């Protein structure tokens, strides 16, 4: 039933600015009583615009930067491992004879963003404390492509899939651990032919704490709430691990958002939204989230995703709450209580 009339209608639909408001949070799919995934229609409409080259300059630059430098932030590949300076981390060799337990896939925001690199540095500290044998790809690591796909650039995502699978398969490792739920989701559900199992870091740390390998000796006497990242919770059903980690930290007074787990409210950082200028004048969801956290008396909003970290932290600043409320990745909290 595909004809020129439908083609014209699709063109008309795809030109609507609202299609770029979708954060691909998955709420529509999670709640759909018929098991559909309505957000994929919006991603499909985006791809019509992408193929015609009609995307916002910020989106254009992010995609072009991934094509040229392997990251959406317009930073050279040569700076991809600047975050590790002085940390003496292991850079893995392809086809190495000796097996390394964990390959940590850092990805772009955790490698380049001045705020988020602190999470990556905390990860090194935590994994070392737990005695994990881990290494990194180094400068050759490229974007996982999750946001590429959500922005509707299917061709470029296929390139990310193909090149990353080939590279990741070349390493002699037991498993891959991602810091971002977006990389986790792409590798787990969208890559083709990846031979290593993939874990989100919260899964690994939950295991390590359970086995007594990661000991938390400090005291963290704060009211902490947890914001479920959409790509970890709704899209991959990882709800218990982050909570078990947080509640095992001595001193933590853990409280839940009213809208938590499957009902968790999106921070609006996914779906390529880090690069989309929205025409919507409605209040940002991250601000709603921060207000809810304040009402329950939270001192810390714990997250497990770089985009949640950035959007929620921005929201605390917009509301002038940065003095009384912190947004921290679980890794950062852990690194303080080792």
């Amino acid at each position: 039933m595909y004809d020129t009339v439908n083609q014209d209608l699709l063109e008309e639909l795809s030109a609507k600015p609202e299609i770029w408001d979708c954060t691909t949070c998955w709420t529509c799919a999670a709640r759909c009583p018929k098991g559909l995934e309505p957000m994929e229609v919006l991603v499909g409409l985006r791809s019509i615009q992408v193929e015609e080259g009609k995307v916002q300059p910020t989106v254009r630059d992010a995609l072009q930067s991934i094509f040229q430098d392997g990251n959406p932030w317009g930073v050279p590949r040569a700076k991809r491992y600047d975050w590790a300076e002085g940390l003496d981390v292991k850079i893995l060799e392809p086809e190495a004879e000796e097996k390394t337990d964990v390959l940590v896939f850092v990805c772009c925001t955790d490698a380049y963003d001045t705020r988020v690199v602190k999470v990556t540095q905390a990860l090194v500290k935590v994994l070392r404390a737990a005695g994990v044998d881990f290494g990194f790809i180094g400068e050759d690591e490229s974007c996982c492509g999750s946001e590429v796909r959500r922005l509707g650039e299917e061709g470029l995502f296929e390139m990310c899939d193909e090149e990353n699978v080939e590279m990741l398969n070349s390493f002699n490792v037991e498993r891959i651990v991602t810091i971002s739920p977006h990389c986790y989701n792409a590798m787990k559900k969208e890559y083709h032919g990846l031979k290593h199992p993939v874990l989100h870091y919260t899964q690994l740390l939950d295991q390590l704490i359970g086995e007594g390998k990661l000991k938390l000796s400090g005291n963290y006497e704060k009211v902490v709430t947890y914001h479920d990242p959409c790509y970890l919770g709704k899209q991959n059903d990882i709800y218990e691990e982050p909570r078990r980690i947080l509640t095992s930290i001595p001193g933590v007074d853990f409280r839940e958002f009213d809208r938590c787990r499957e009902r968790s409210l999106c921070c609006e950082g996914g779906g390529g939204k880090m690069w989309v200028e929205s025409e919507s004048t409605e209040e940002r969801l991250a601000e709603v989230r921060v207000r809810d956290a304040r009402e329950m008396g939270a001192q810390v909003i714990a997250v497990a995703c770089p985009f949640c970290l950035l959007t929620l932290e921005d929201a605390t600043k917009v509301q002038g709450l940065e003095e009384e409320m912190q947004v921290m990745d679980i890794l950062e909290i852990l690194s303080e209580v080792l």
Partner: protein
Amino acid sequence: MNMVVCVKRVPDTAESEVHIDSTGKGIETGKLSFRMNDADNYAVEEAILIKEKIGGTVNVISIGDEKSDEQIRMALAKGGDEAIRITDPALAGSDGFALAKALAAAIKGMEYDLVLTGALADDDGCAVVGVALAELLGVPHAAYVKKVEVLEDGKKIKVGRELEGGLMEFLEMELPAVLTIQTGINEPRYASFKGIKAAAKKEIAVKSVADLGLDPSEVGEAGSWAVLESFTYPVVGEKAEILEGDPAETAAKLAAILKEKGLV
């Protein structure tokens, strides 16, 4: 309207440190990424916009080794029709004038109404090639163009040139002509990955200096008016002061100096 667009592959130095290489005549490129020269990207877009509006063809030309195919393909993906890449060891050391000679030799045999180049290259910053090209082709030119309007008969164009202080100078020009395009004239479109892949099927005609009917002595250092002797780092003069410390400290020192000198 038959158009020719000249594009150049340049290192992206906005976020990178630039180091002089061991020859003293070049920079270390190993850790740099490359892209289409910014102004050339706008020139490509302008040509495609004109083509979409009134029809015609867009021929893309670049000088460089096979790595420049990446930039050519990007222009083809956006709507370019044909492409030529000029490559020859004899071109090494060419200044803007010598490069313009090679481009002119390639363009002379074509039927063209309009040649577009970027106003300025991000690497050498000479702003010479477009203007020299017009002279060699014997056609009028306008530099730093920020507006192009094709007049009704298609034989003339109206162009706006960017002058100091944001002033625009408007000119009517006869065609054929050469325009050097300033950044900001339009909003360049995105070249999708599939588009670039499809463009890879279009043939890029590779030509040597001899193919263009030029003698090797007409290009390279021998054919240039300006020869690059060496690069040097800026010398720290007596009045230069390098502030040291973390960002908070250096910012405080800088603020104190600016206040002291009455500059703020």
